[in-house]
């Protein structure tokens, strides 16, 4: 069925609006004189930043790879006692935003070693690893579960032993998932702003933010952003390549599938249990217990409850607007992609994913410049903030909305027409009701993720508009842990919902 012109037009316009920040950044890049631009990019400071950013990304990614793959293997392919509990616990750090974790570790340090400071490269590496490894752990678990046991059985029938089979068949089939997860993890680390700022590590994202907040060095900000853009693009291209070659490993899910072989750990069971649980427990217990202790002190401060309440309302208001706008943009694009994806539609989709992977500081900076230069009337209003959120969150809404659009095949609309409904009525009576669950879960995902967003919110919020995230940021800067902790706790609660949605899907697969 052809995609109506109005739908295509709506999709193009909506997506272009959402992509405005990205395009504007590129326009501004082109406006600087080339020599100045090159001087900034290839300066000693820039080299220092690049070294720190890349070393941090490399260190964290390597640690996450070990943790993520190891835990995924133990959970899916061994007879370790309590492996399901371990499976859920290992995914839980997903619910702790990186800057909340950084705050948690720092405030824990303040409890145990008052007077010392917890900051610097290694602190950041540990903190970021503790909340980022699930990005490798989850896809690898899914891949290990979906390897068709029939292929492992075929290898066994051809004379390979269990360990040999694991390395020659299973690992080969999980390789694309591991690679994709690793690159995704690297993209997250390089984009991270909150944790490195709280722990005072000079990376690109922190430098971009500083250039914005200190006197607003536009050239510096844009030049550094462009380097970040290039790094991210490289990682994205690699990830896309892996994903494409990875699809051929996908297996059919048949009925009555055999269960995969599970290794017994024998006398190593206890040491392996300890080794597996230690990092998971540390990643969860350190920040959460610190939050709990400090929160109890924090809420007893006079006036704190009112402050928390108004920040929560502001968070909900800003994130609600973002959810509404982002979902509205996602619906026409999803219908187009589901029905007859043209090259243009695919291009729009890919651009949306690119903007999503860019650091929030880059998108934030671009919208700030756009506001000052082009739309001064809208600068520091909810409009500009919502625009930045749309650019950052569109793929989150697009995922579930697209899935639901695919579950409402065009044959159903044709059936409705053969039963006398006009095309418009057919859409309203058949396709929209079928897409509704996807639209709602897309909106919910955007809502909850937007509440956690820090850098763009800091740069674009209207004056005096404080959300949970910005309050936490302000109090952390002043090292008032007790005042900050309740906001951090609220953020963990909010982030727990989408994390739990992912974990429960995982649980169904592992069982």
């Amino acid at each position, binding site marked *: 069925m052809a995609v109506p012109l109005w739908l295509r037009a709506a999709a193009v316009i909506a997506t272009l609006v959402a992509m405005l920040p990205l395009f504007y950044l590129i326009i501004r890049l082109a406006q600087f004189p080339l020599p100045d631009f090159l001087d900034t990019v290839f300066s000693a400071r820039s080299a220092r930043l690049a070294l720190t950013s890349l070393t941090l990304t490399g260190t964290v990614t390597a640690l996450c790879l070990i943790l993520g793959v190891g835990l995924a293997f133990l959970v899916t392919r061994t007879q370790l006692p309590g492996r399901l509990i371990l499976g859920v616990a290992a995914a839980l750090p997903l619910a702790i935003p990186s800057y909340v974790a950084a705050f948690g570790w720092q405030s824990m340090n303040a409890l145990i070693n008052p007077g010392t400071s917890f900051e610097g490269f290694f602190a950041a590496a540990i903190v970021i690893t503790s909340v980022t490894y699930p990005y490798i752990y989850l896809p690898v678990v899914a891949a290990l579960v979906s390897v068709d046991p029939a292929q492992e059985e075929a290898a066994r029938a051809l004379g390979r032993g269990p360990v040999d089979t694991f390395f020659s068949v299973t690992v080969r089939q999980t390789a694309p998932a591991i690679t994709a997860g690793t690159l995704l993890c690297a993209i997250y680390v390089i984009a991270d702003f909150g944790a490195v700022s709280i722990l005072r590590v000079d990376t690109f994202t922190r430098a971009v933010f500083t250039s914005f907040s200190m006197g607003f060095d536009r050239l510096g900000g844009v030049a550094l952003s462009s380097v970040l853009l290039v790094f991210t693009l490289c990682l994205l291209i690699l990830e896309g390549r892996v994903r494409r070659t990875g699809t051929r490993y996908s297996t059919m899910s048949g009925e009555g599938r055999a269960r995969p072989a599970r290794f017994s750990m024998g006398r190593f069971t206890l040491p392996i249990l300890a080794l597996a649980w230690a990092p998971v427990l540390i990643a969860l217990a350190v920040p959460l217990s610190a939050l709990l202790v400090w929160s109890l002190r924090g809420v007893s401060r006079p006036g704190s409850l009112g402050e928390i309440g108004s920040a929560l309302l502001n968070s909900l208001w800003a994130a609600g607007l973002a959810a509404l706008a982002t979902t509205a943009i996602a619906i026409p694009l999803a219908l187009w992609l589901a029905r007859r994806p043209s090259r243009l539609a695919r291009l729009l989709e890919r651009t949306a994913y690119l903007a999503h992977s860019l650091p929030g500081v880059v998108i934030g900076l671009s919208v700030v410049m756009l506001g000052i230069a082009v739309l001064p009337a809208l600068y520091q209003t909810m409009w500009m903030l919502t625009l930045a959120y749309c650019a950052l969150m569109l793929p989150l809404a697009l995922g579930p909305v697209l899935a639901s659009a695919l579950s409402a*095949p065009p044959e159903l609309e*044709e059936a409705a027409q053969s*039963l*006398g409904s006009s095309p418009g009525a057919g859409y309203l009576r058949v396709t929209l*009701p079928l897409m509704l669950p996807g639209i709602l879960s897309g909106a919910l995902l955007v809502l909850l993720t937007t509440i956690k967003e820090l850098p763009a919110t800091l740069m674009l919020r209207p004056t005096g508009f404080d959300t949970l995230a910005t309050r936490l940021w302000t109090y952390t800067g002043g090292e008032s842990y007790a005042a900050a902790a309740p906001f951090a706790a609220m953020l963990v609660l909010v982030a727990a919902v989408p994390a739990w949605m992912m974990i429960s899907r995982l649980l169904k697969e592992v069982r």
Partner: protein
Amino acid sequence: MNATDHDTTMLQVSGVEVRFGDQRVLHDIDLSVQAGTTTAIVGPSGSGKTSLLRVIAGFLAPERGAVRLHGAEVTSMAAHRRSIGLVAQDGALFPHLDVAGNIAFGLPRGTPRRERRRRVAELLELVSLTGEHASRRPDQLSGGQRQRVALARALARAPELILLDEPFSALDAGLRENTRQAIREILRVTGTTAILVTHDQDEALSFADQVAVLKDGRLRQIGAPEEVYRRPCDVETAQFLGDAVLLPGALTAEIPGRLSAKAGAVWDSATPLGSVQVELVCPNLATAHLTVGGAAGQVMLRPEQITLSDQGVAGTVLSSQYFGHDTTALVQLEGVEAPLRLRQLNAVPLAAGTQVHLAVQGSGVFYPAFTDCSACAARPAPVSIIPRSAAAALVPATMD
């Protein structure tokens, strides 16, 4: 076309052509469907069946040609304004509505609730489902039940014509047979005109009053099931519609009292199985093409026409396969390269090496060697065989 024809013609497709880019998927399709009858469009996958169905339904605009419903042109009318029902391959039931909601979907808006409920109950009964199915969700139904609900949903609006797009192909063998019979019976009882699209020749032959064979976007032959099976217009069609035994043969003498090279003419032919009576079926043959004793070609027989007898041409059994209800055997004849396949009902398999004698029951079809059907006129006219009695009456003028 005369006046009475016009009154009973429900659907008239004329000169329809469809292109996808450079590719022509339908060439000059002419098809007419009489009210109250069932037509099967049969063809291998990729032959253009579904495109033709979508042109009729109104989901695909033809490049050229016209679609008429009851004589009124509907070629550019939107699908939802044509009174044409559609039953898709997997039923295309709305997953968010229960069975009753699906069936009532097409009822006019503002139909009172009681009337709605009455119609749903009536239609459920028609398709042999009970009231308790009314509140089920589509995913709680079996494949056969889903197709029945899809049919009930299409029938609810009492459409002029129902299109069935491979509706049985997703069902397993036993269920397919039952569902097919049930749906055929429902169509008969309600007097509904229907077009079935299928790639399964058995289904086409057993389901329809009229079979249209589609190949490479062209309609090769249209006729009654026994007509297209017994007298396929070319070798490809013969092989598509069932097992065909092809023997080298030459015309020997025209049986006195028959038309000559016209379609329907009956000749004798010399084949490795002896003298076999054959018919000419191609409407585009001319007398000049055929000379007694000179025209060589192929004689087509169906495997069940070749029987074992006490005398006749001798051959050796190569192998035999037992299917329960029937048995097939491959028999090698002297002087024929390819072994013959014959089918016997209710027989035990023959041991390889057994000597048998073969006889031919009924008449075969003769395809002259020079006939190149794909190069023949772009649109083979529908074959209409003159009944033998009528042909006999025409004899004296042309013969002698």
